[in-house]
């Protein structure tokens, strides 16, 4: 019980509940998303796109996705750059 509460609290601090995290997938690929706590966003690794979470609400409209420029963006602590092209 205590460990489950801890998991829930951790996910809540990151912006979404663990139950929600189990259901959410990339709207385009339908593949699982990875939570990135540093940027408070959901990463679709298969297509290198990041979906932001703002005020606790995940923005998962495909056009909300930000293309991650490089492998470095996928792992870096800096927020991903907006694709300028």
């Amino acid at each position, binding site marked *: 019980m205590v460990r489950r509460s801890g998991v829930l609290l951790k996910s809540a601090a990151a912006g*979404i*509940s663990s139950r929600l995290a189990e259901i959410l*997938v990339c*709207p385009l690929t339908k593949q699982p998303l990875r939570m990135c706590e540093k940027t408070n966003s959901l990463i679709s690794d298969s297509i290198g796109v990041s979906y932001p979470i703002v005020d606790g609400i*995940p923005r*998962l409209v*495909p056009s909300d996705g930000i293309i991650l420029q490089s492998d470095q963006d996928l792992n870096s602590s800096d927020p991903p750059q907006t694709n300028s092209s």
Partner: protein
Amino acid sequence: MATTLQFALPSIAGRRRRPRPDSRSIIRPVRCAADRQALFNRIAPVYDNLNDLFSLGRHRVWKRMTVSWSGVKEGDTVLDVCCGSGDLAFLLSEKVGITGKVIALDFSREQLQIAASRQSERSKACYKNIEWIEGDAVNLPFSKSSFDAATIGYGLRNIVDRRKAMEEMYKVLKPGSKVSILDFNKSTSSLNSSIQDWMIDCIVVPIASGYGLANEYHYLKNSIKEYLTGNELEKLAGEVSFSEAKFYEIGAGFMGNLVATR
């Protein structure tokens, strides 16, 4: 009566007033998804109050019927698509209780902000089980067979690719689960259609124009004309593989609810 009611409503118009346009010159088609998204963002501040006004509060009854038809029960994980300001989501959360979960999705950021505000103002513990998602009904961000029930209220008519939306809802429902779809009824009765048109032209649009929203509510009439009849909705549900589909006319035939089972 309309004047008295208007004084009782928030004076959003004071901040948004612009010269009343000649409606014939400025009516623009609201065709693409981006136009519709912008429309729902614009009406968000007055959406709830105008729903109450135009339906004389009856929309609350129809929404309870929609929730009941979805088969939702305590402990379920349920989805509300095109949740808007959250009416159906709040009703669903009362049914699923604190052990259940409601995922509510909309593509209008402004509607979701209002929904989240309403959630924080309410004290019932079950409302904390609602999660708001900004998302697109034709590209649902949920894994297959995730939900015990789904609802969509006054949303399907506004979706450009309705077949795709129905396919998406089918995939995310668990086998045997239902989607309950409430909307205006595109009636096959010419009397009903005429009365519906008259009510929109002579009541809805004039009142909405007081809020600078004539164009937005004129869209309503065209969207009903372009929508599907009950029979067509049942047929569409069958085509995307729902095993059963039944359409119910409610609200004196002005509204309708499709119930489709995966």
